[in-house]
């Protein structure tokens, strides 16, 4: 069975191609149009055609294949996020690999990572003090993988990769508690996490870090959310110290126990 089935026609000097690409992730519909100086009517893509039509078909084919390729990447990225959330460690490892390749500047990995993060964020609206819409299942296995990466904390690259790849798939509470049980979140460690960020991204992270309690700021910014996760995790670590007032984490608990 052919992977690609298409129909083409010319109308008002424009070649229109519509079809379906049968991918491993399901059918991907496509359509494309471009200028074509020929008579109106159906075009049989497999048959010999005037040169203007052949050129238009070739030009369209490049654009269509690029679009299909991008759509396949998006579907694959979304599947990886879903599998990771469901506890698939191979998927989690693949995500880490993609992240590492993206950090090395590989274009395809960068694009794929952006798609993963966009999808992960669109499925995650968990904010401290608000209701969660994800994940559908407790992802203990994901936390285990994350723990393994985060508890090591000896290799900055791996640590950063784990943070950037795994935290978007966790709720704020899960992410913060997991981080709080890893290495100390001192200034040096946080510097490692944000060093590859753009200045604007760093600004959002720091704002989130300082305002982790604040639920009134409504934003989908991934770095702001990451900052809040780190802020809460840091407060949990601090409150464990014998002399730190409990109120730095919880005013209610502080009133009762400080």
């Amino acid at each position: 069975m052919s992977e690609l089935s298409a129909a083409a026609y010319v109308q008002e000097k424009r070649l229109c191609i519509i079809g379906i690409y049968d991918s491993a992730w399901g059918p991907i519909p496509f359509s494309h149009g471009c200028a074509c100086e020929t008579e109106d009517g159906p075009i049989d893509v497999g048959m010999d055609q005037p040169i203007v039509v052949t050129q238009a078909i070739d030009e369209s084919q490049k654009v269509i294949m690029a679009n299909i390729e991008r759509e396949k990447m998006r579907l694959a990225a979304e599947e990886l996020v879903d599998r990771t959330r469901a506890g698939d460690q191979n998927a989690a490892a693949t995500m880490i690999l993609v992240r590492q390749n993206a950090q090395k500047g590989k274009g395809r990995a960068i694009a794929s990572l952006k798609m993963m993060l966009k999808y992960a964020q669109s499925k995650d609206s968990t904010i401290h003090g608000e209701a969660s819409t994800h994940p559908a299942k407790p992802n203990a296995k994901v936390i285990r993988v994350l723990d393994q990466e985060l508890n090591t904390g000896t290799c900055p690259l791996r640590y950063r990769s784990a943070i950037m790849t795994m935290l978007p798939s966790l709720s704020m509470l899960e992410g913060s508690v997991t981080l709080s049980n890893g290495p100390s979140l001192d200034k040096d460690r946080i510097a490692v996490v944000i060093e590859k960020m753009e200045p604007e991204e760093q600004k959002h992270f720091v704002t989130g870090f300082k305002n982790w309690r604040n639920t009134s700021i409504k934003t989908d910014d991934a770095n702001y959310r990451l900052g809040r996760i780190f802020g809460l995790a840091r407060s949990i670590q601090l409150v464990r110290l014998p002399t730190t007032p409990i109120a730095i984490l919880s005013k209610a608990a502080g009133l009762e126990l400080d």
Partner: protein
Amino acid sequence: MPFPLIPVGIGLLAGVAAWAQFGREKTKMTPERQKIYDAAIRSLKDPAGLEALGIAFKNEGLHTEGNLLLKRAALRQLTPVQKAANRAKWKSGMASKNPKEVLEIADEFEERGATGAAAELRKYARGLLGTPSE
């Protein structure tokens, strides 16, 4: 002369209704009482004040709220050594990686009237368990 049964019946019913209404008012958490209770739970540190309010609430028939206020008063009256032990216990819960243990400590604090401390521990335990809700 025969006893006027119907007027007596009406009077009795009215009395029961009034008593029932009075009873309901007495044990009802009115918006004003709720405001006072919430403010006391959120910010009142004075043990004598907490105790007086707790007794007042109990006298009004609001036993649950009154008892919690009295427990709060007792917490505030602990010696510095006892307070330090409580803090250390709570901090040990917040450092534990065992959600069951954390929840047990939370129950202890709840029992002692430290509902905020218990809530924070339970939240932390949810994070350990990977429960998706905040």
